[in-house]
């Protein structure tokens, strides 16, 4: 049982089935001023905000569900929250939204809500949303008769245009001052299902006039040829947006922090504080703030796809191939995002309603070849793979190696989920793939921008603390006891010597061990640390001297390949682990994944080392 939300005095509850326009209505009714409560362990958001025009009344936006008979963990939490709210004396009114263009799927839930409100003695208003769509098609609906048959007031509104919201204001005011509760008839669910079916037949729009545009667009977007091309173009644009649209902002964050560091650090004293501020504080903050623009852009673009209705089509297209690996069509976007960065990818997994498949997606995302791996791959490939070509210059060995290591990560991700899905015990039955195909709509930008910003705030406040703390610990280990004079003689260096036997089977000495351990902060730190170990300043910006140093050392091709394999699999990123533990609501999952992927990375690297050595590398 999840802890229930404590309602503020004079509360109103907004509920409805998924895709009924509830969130848009919530934003209208609260003037977009709302905050979000996040339940650990489960992706259920309950937003709250002050109800405009009603002093002291707080409106709560509860998660959408098709029925009070829950079939998933998510729905169970939503239903439990609703039932707990009904018992709360602070609850003044329930607002239940139905989609008049798709009446039947909303009506059964609405009838259940009316029944429960009658039992709990709470007034309820049924808000018939999207009435403007009916009017646009010259379809009328007898809302008075529907009110009579449902046993609760039904008001025609449009969350999109604001139509009918003045009447809603009056109705809320009236119900709060003199509540009129539905009568307490305890009809069983089976009877309500029949009633909903009959009411939908009597009052719902007839014919397919509302679905014609959607059908025409689906015929294109789900077409074997055109649909496939459209899918790849849209995904390419999404991928590009993560890299290109966010790049200037990421550069700005990096430069801004660099400028601030240059300004502040010289003013600090003593040197210990100065070094801590420069290397731990600013570097630590920079290591996670730099992801904020990427998270913003990704959330915004995914929001555009969701609001437009395309996301449901993309999930459908990808479902079959991903199902083979234990995933769902909805796993595709998180995995694609993971190719840029695992953090927005893990956030994007929120849209997966099946907890098991969301868990499997969490497992796949960190194995996607993220951009932080790129500097490591670039360094190792430049150092170990010859820059020559084959087939008359068509195939460059370095490019081929980069391609193979990227594919290797993706294949590992899919194989891991395939194995875990087949061999792990299933705690609750998986949800079947039943997806409502929403109408195509123009997205509303302001709520999307706010949602993107909220996601960034969540990242900064939830993951930031953990990242800074771990950064500080690594800094202390690398700085003491000789005050940063020699990383090799630091505690981190001593640990490096201590764990050298672990890295020796891969042909690596303690310097590589320290670089691997420090890359736990972020993978790209490997390059900088290795630069420090070899006495080269600024290795991140210019790798050429470091490449030469590595080539001149005794390290062989087999060790280089082993390192590539290790970094393709290991979950060496504290930011990803912090976000993973917050999103999954489980530190244990993040720790287990870190240990499992580290172990798997080591074993695979060892196999790669042995194979390449055997082949004469």
């Amino acid at each position: 049982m999840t802890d229930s939300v404590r309602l503020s005095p004079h509360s109103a509850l907004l509920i409805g089935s998924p895709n009924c326009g509830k969130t848009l209505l919530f934003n209208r009714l609260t003037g977009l001023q709302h905050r979000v409560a996040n339940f650990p362990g489960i992706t259920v958001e309950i937003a709250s905000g002050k109800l405009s025009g009603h002093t002291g009344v707080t409106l709560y936006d509860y998660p959408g569900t098709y029925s009070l008979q829950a079939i998933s963990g998510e729905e169970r939490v939503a239903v439990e929250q609703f039932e707990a709210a009904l018992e709360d004396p602070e609850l003044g009114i329930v607002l239940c939204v139905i989609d008049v263009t798709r009446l039947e799927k909303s009506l059964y839930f609405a009838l259940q809500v009316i029944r429960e409100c009658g039992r709990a003695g709470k007034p309820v208003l049924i808000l018939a949303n999207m009435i403007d769509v009916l009017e646009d098609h010259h379809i009328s609906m007898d809302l008075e008769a529907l009110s009579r048959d449902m046993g609760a007031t039904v008001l025609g509104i449009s969350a999109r245009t604001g139509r009918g919201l003045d009447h809603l204001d009056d109705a809320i005011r009236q119900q709060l001052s003199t509540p009129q509760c539905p009568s307490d008839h305890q009809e069983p669910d089976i009877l309500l299902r029949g009633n909903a079916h009959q009411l939908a037949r009597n009052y719902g729009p007839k014919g397919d006039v509302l679905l014609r545009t959607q059908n025409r667009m689906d015929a294109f977007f789900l077409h074997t040829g055109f649909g496939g091309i459209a899918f790849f173009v849209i995904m390419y644009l999404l991928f590009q947006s993560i890299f290109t649209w966010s790049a200037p902002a990421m550069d700005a964050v990096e430069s801004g922090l660099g400028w601030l560091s240059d300004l502040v650090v010289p003013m600090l004293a003593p040197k210990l504080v100065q070094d801590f501020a420069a290397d731990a504080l600013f570097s630590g903050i920079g290591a996670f703030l730099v992801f904020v623009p990427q998270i913003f852009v990704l959330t915004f673009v995914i929001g555009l796809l969701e609001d437009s209705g395309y996301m449901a089509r993309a999930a459908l297209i990808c479902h079959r191939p991903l199902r083979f690996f234990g995933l769902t069509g909805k796993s595709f976007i998180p995995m694609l995002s993971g190719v840029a960065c695992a953090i927005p990818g893990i956030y994007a997994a929120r849209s997966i309603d099946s907890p098991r498949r969301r868990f499997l997606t969490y497992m796949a995302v960190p194995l996607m070849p993220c951009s932080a791996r790129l500097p490591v791959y670039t360094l190792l490939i430049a150092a170990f793979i010859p820059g020559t070509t084959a087939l008359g210059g068509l195939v460059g060995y370095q490019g081929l190696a980069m391609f193979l290591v990227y594919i290797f990560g993706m294949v590992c991700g899919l194989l891991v989920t395939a194995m875990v899905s087949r061999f792990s015990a299933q705690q609750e039955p998986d949800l079947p793939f039943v997806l409502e195909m929403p109408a195509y709509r123009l997205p509303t930008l302001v709520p999307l921008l706010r949602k993107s910003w909220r996601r960034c705030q969540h990242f900064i406040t939830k993951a930031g603390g953990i990242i800074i703390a771990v950064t500080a610990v690594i800094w202390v280990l690398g700085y003491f006891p000789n005050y940063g004079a020699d990383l090799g003689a630091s505690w981190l260096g001593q640990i490096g010597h201590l764990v050298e036997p672990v890295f020796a089977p891969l042909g690596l000495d303690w310097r590589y061990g320290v670089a691997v351990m420090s890359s736990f902060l972020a993978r790209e730190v490997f390059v900088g640390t290795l630069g420090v170990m070899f006495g080269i300043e600024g290795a991140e910006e210019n790798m050429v001297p470091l490449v030469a140093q590595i080539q001149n050392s005794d390290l062989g091709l087999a060790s280089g390949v082993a390192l590539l394999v290790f970094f393709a699999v290991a979950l060496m990123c504290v930011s990803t682990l912090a976000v993973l533990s917050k999103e999954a609501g489980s530190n244990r999952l993040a720790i287990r994944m870190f240990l499992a992927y580290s172990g798997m990375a080591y074993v695979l690297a060892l196999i790669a080392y042995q194979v390449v050595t055997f082949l004469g590398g």
Partner: protein
Amino acid sequence: MTVSLWTLTRGQCGAIDGFDEALQDEYRIRLMELGFHPGEQVSCLQAPALGAPKVYRVANTVFSLDDQIAAHVRVRPQTHD
């Protein structure tokens, strides 16, 4: 004669006859909550390639169902005159 909903091809319609016994109760109930009642008309709007979930219209709502669930819904196909 009844066939499974999954066998309907694009453009084909049918009337829902019932559900396989193999379908868990909670999923049968959920399908009915969504409008898949026995006797209700259902039409296959899209049948994308490579075994992707098909798109069905029931009442005034469009749903996508994969073979794992659509195979459990029995329908009486209707022939076009």
